[in-house]
């Protein structure tokens, strides 16, 4: 099948990539770039384990055609750490042991990145956190720990000038 050449940015690096017209972003990331952090759980956009950021917003990469990221910025779990330092969200997940088997963790962390970005002006309530992350299924049942990790971040990342 003829490939389509698109320009995109993946984890901060501008790239020109040749994608198949029927290839999902998840397939391209995993099979061709070997960025295997995003994983396929359900393949139909229900479980959230393939979540990556596109222009800062979490999307299911299993439902996103690779051609659709033309001119956009894609961030995967591999793109979070800086100079060997884990991202704050990753650190919080470690601190609160917010995972058991780890399969949902990359997607969960990317969803939390989206949550924190979306609620950067006003801290999310517990109900808003639960609602935002309800598209990320954890079969081990570590929701309580994930919630604690996120709440610790919300406390730490309170925007300057906001009360508390």
């Amino acid at each position, binding site marked *: 099948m003829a490939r389509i050449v698109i320009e995109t940015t993946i984890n901060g690096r501008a790239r020109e990539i040749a994608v198949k017209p029927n290839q999902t972003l998840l397939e391209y990331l995993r099979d061709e770039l070997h960025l295997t952090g995003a994983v396929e759980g359900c393949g139909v956009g229900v479980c959230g384990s393939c979540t990556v950021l596109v222009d800062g917003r979490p999307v299911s990469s299993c439902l996103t055609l690779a051609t659709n990221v033309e001119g956009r910025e894609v961030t995967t779990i591999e793109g979070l750490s800086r100079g060997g330092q884990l991202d704050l969200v990753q650190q919080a997940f470690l601190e609160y042991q917010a995972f058991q088997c780890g399969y949902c963790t990359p997607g969960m962390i990317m969803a939390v990145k989206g949550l924190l970005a979306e609620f950067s002006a006003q801290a999310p309530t517990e109900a808003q956190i639960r609602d935002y992350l309800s598209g990320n299924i*954890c*079969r081990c049942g570590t929701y309580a720990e994930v*919630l604690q990790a996120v709440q610790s971040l919300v406390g730490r990342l309170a925007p300057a000038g906001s009360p508390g």
Partner: protein
Amino acid sequence: MLPSMEDAPEGFRSLLVETPHPDGPFGAKGVGEAGLGPVAPAIGNAVANALGGARVKDLPIRPDRVLAALRAGPSPSGSGLR
């Protein structure tokens, strides 16, 4: 359906009850896999039941293995149903 974060009860606390497993490394025992283990045997039993007791003992249960099991005839362990 799997419960989502919205279904997790409020004030949910995990308590670790330490009962070391004698055969596991450092006393560890897998727990997340408990839901996976029974699935293949359950499907295998259903297939054996449908085949009149001929049992496929290797995964995946492919058509060629089903044919081979049918040719070999009912397994001594039967259909798995009593």
